[in-house]
């Protein structure tokens, strides 16, 4: 069965510090992984997907199949990065399994 684990419920860092939000997955097929973000009082929205290998708002995420991980990283956190972050795994063609989420709090 597919599974996504985000071990940290809350992550607090100071502005300018590096940040890494952890995501581990379990899936027997070839994984398609995503990070979604929900800012305060806004809709959930796509941040990035592993197949595009792009950097969005300074965030990157690398798929590590050996460690079955898809951690989200940013070298210098900004206060506006404070939000709820969800890692998601696509399975069975267009069905998604979301992790439990990590709340990132960037302190000034």
């Amino acid at each position, binding site marked *: 069965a597919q599974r996504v684990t985000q071990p940290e419920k809350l992550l607090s860092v100071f502005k300018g510090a590096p940040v890494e939000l952890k995501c581990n997955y379990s899936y027997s097929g070839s994984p398609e992984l995503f990070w*979604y973000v929900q800012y305060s009082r806004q809709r959930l929205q796509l941040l990035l997907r592993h197949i595009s290998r792009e950097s969005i708002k300074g965030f990157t995420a690398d798929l590590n199949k050996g460690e079955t991980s898809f951690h989200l990283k940013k070298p210098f956190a900004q206060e506006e990065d404070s939000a709820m972050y969800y890692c998601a795994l696509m399975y069975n063609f*267009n069905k*998604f399994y*979301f992790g439990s989420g990590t709340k990132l709090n960037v302190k000034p």
Partner: protein
Amino acid sequence: DVKVTQSSRYLVKRTGEKVFLECVQDMDHENMFWYRQDPGLGLRLIYFSYDVKMKEKGDIPEGYSVSREKKERFSLILESASTNQTSMYLCASSPAGTDYEQYFGPGTRLTVT
């Protein structure tokens, strides 16, 4: 700009009532989804529809049903609401093909008393 709207932002219902949550998208997307979002549990897929009148169960379909009579509209039905169905309900849509990005609605916070 993709728009997904949900019929109510807040809803309060009594135990045993039949509840309808409506979702409409204006981007001609084939796929539509209903999730519930609970603290500490993240988003859990209730039902998924990949075409008109087509549906698939998600991870937690018990106590829910869905209806998709038109492409742009996907309804979630709670046949007999219970207190453990108090939650935030999110609707999403996505196009067919290889663009898997889901576009989410603002959510409906349902309280069952």
